[in-house]
């Protein structure tokens, strides 16, 4: 079901993984496997996460008190389900705010550079989907 991911795209996602996981868990509690799928769907297929990188980050978020987890039984199988905590929601708000500041600043630089390039007759670069979303 999943397609291969380029190394650069993968590292782009990894850099924002804590924010993405907190955002996803703020919508609904989830287990690891479903989180990978929901990130793929919510990003419109742009984010393909290396499966092995997910769990250490979830454990780290739990250690920091931003999520909590417990075993749950679903369809007769035991699964570790993660939920965002109050501290996690506050952290999500703060990290979202910081992300928007950075995104707007990068957009501003890119637009200014492209406008300057237009002014001297250079072709305007067309960012790919992942470059536009992954940072």
């Amino acid at each position: 079901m999943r397609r291969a991911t380029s190394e650069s795209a993968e590292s782009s996602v990894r850099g924002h993984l804590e924010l993405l996981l907190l955002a996803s868990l703020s919508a609904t509690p989830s287990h690891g496997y479903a989180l990978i799928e929901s990130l793929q769907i919510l990003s419109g297929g742009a984010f393909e996460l290396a499966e092995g990188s997910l769990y250490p980050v979830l454990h780290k978020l739990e250690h920091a008190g931003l999520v909590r987890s417990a075993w749950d039984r679903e369809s007769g199988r035991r699964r570790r389900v993660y939920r965002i905590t109050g501290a996690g929601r506050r952290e999500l708000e703060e990290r979202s705010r910081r992300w928007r500041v950075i995104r707007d600043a990068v957009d501003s630089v890119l637009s200014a550079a492209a406008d300057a390039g237009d002014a001297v007759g250079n072709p305007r670069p067309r960012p790919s989907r992942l470059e536009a979303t992954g940072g």
Partner: protein
Amino acid sequence: VAEPIDAWIQQLRAALTSERRLRQTRIVDEARDHLQLSADELEREGLSRREAEAKAVAQLGDPRRFAREFSPPAPLDWLVDAAA
């Protein structure tokens, strides 16, 4: 010959020897759960059980690397960070 998921889990266990028992059990159980879900889905897509397990473990990656990512930083890492 061990099935792919069992073999992968054995290698993970061996790589997690420095972790405390409770934490080791949780990491192993969670990884096994993930691999079984992944293999179930791949099997539904038409792979044989063995092919599905082999692909599921390949997607989760090398078990030693997986184990390493759970390891806390070495005690002196903060010194290196501070000096950088």
